[in-house]
């Protein structure tokens, strides 16, 4: 039985410009996966941005040294397709009965299409939102899974006026995204507008019932002598039967080294 909990997918990723890949997401995750970091594929920075991946592979210079940013083409001039990238990785996981596997993206800028073993899922717009996909039913029986993600830039990357300015032409303000990426005060315009899988990707294994977003709150009385901890959580039963659960909360304080007060 696979151990419950989170496994972060932060290594082994490949990336390629979408216009240089002639395969579909279904092909990439079934019959024609990339074999390694050979053109047009390169080692990817995940979490990170497209520009971060290009810098990592020395395709472009680091924009934060000297005036190097001026040598990198801006999305306004290149078009959105130039910074639309495929990201690809694999993971090995075999589940036993009643286990579920969630594919979690903690943040993507700005929207994406996810392909896992030939199946397509769409991640809707929004830079500051989590996505959690239950992919239990589309895992490969042999445990080898192929994952490809096509990441699209913000809808309104805007243009940078010659004189610069706060937030360029302000177009980025139309999206729910970072607004400094068109340039700000001392900040140079970010050429890809931070497009990418910019925060943690993980797989998460649970049994039939999952804990979702617990909320902890404390209240204080009598000059902080009498204190209460209030804990609320959402529980999701993914099974087809009534789940009889024992729900436990335990609070401990590490006093010193490995000594805990329970």
């Amino acid at each position, binding site marked *: 039985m696979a151990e419950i909990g989170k496994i972060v997918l932060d290594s082994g990723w490949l990336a390629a410009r979408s216009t240089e890949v002639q395969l579909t997401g279904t092909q990439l995750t079934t019959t024609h996966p990339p074999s390694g970091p050979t053109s047009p594929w390169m080692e990817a920075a995940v979490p990170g941005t497209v520009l971060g991946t290009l810098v990592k592979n020395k395709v472009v210079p680091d924009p934060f040294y000297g005036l190097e940013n001026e040598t990198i083409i801006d999305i306004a001039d290149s078009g959105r397709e130039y910074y639309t990238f495929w990201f690809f990785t694999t993971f090995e996981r075999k589940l036993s009965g009643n286990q579920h596997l969630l594919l979690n993206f903690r943040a993507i800028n700005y929207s994406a299409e996810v392909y896992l073993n030939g199946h397509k899922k769409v991640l809707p717009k929004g830079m500051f939102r989590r996505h959690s996909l239950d992919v239990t039913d589309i895992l490969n029986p042999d445990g080898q899974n192929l994952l490809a993600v096509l990441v699209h830039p913000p809808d309104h990357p805007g243009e940078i006026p010659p004189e610069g300015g706060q937030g360029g032409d302000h177009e980025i303000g*139309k999206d729910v995204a*970072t607004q400094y990426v068109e340039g700000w005060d001392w900040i140079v315009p970010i050429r890809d507008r931070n497009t990418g899988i910019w925060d943690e990707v993980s797989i998460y294994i649970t049994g*039939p019932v999952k804990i979702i977003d617990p909320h902890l709150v*404390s209240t204080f009385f009598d000059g902080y002598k009498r204190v209460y*901890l209030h804990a609320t959580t959402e529980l999701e039963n993914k099974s087809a039967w*009534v789940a009889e659960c024992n729900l*436990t909360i335990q609070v*401990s304080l590490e006093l010193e080294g490995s000594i805990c007060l329970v």
Partner: protein
Amino acid sequence: EHLQTRHVSIPAGKSVQYTFPELFFYKPNLWWPNGMGKQSLYNVIITVDVEGYGESDSWSHLFGFRKIESYIDSGTGGRLFKVNGQPIFIRGGNWILSDGLLRLSRKRYKTDIKFHADMNFNMIRCWGGGLAERPEFYHYCDIYGLLVWQEFWITGDVDGRGVPVSNPDGPLDHDLFLLCARDTIKLLRNHPSLALWVGGNEQVPPPDLNNALKNDLKLHPYFVTSEEAGKSIQGLS
């Protein structure tokens, strides 16, 4: 007292919300900002065991007992903060993000935030033109005692000012903004360092967004104690 197990039945394919009976602590070690005391952190673990299956899921988080209040002082127009009933003189740093290419690593967060603490700062303000910072950022603010002033993604310069004048109505999709805001709040709300949410930078969000944020983030009536209800201070958090 600090260990409870409760039985819950969850219908097939459904979600439920469950609230534990409150846990009592006598004089717990409080979490204090940098310079005022220790940053005591309790480890809270929630597990769910399913009959006929075993442990189905587990969740843990470091939690600090602290009470943060703030209000606008009518005399000075400045915002005053209290932590655990004690007034605190705020010494803050302004934070855009750790790197423009979003090369956000735990090591970098740790180093940068410890640096703020070493400078005797006790607050970091996360600017609205940048990110809602990540859990790793908040983790180290919890550890080093930096209060966090977190802004949402509205700025005057692309939301109402500039040449030509930008759209004052914020992002085009207000529902998406609120969806992202609510999800971000759920991601970060348990960190003791999280001190204040702000609608944006140098700008009040459009009325519908501002009202929704204020409504979603106001103290739940259950947690307004009679002690607090008697106070007339406006904006008590």
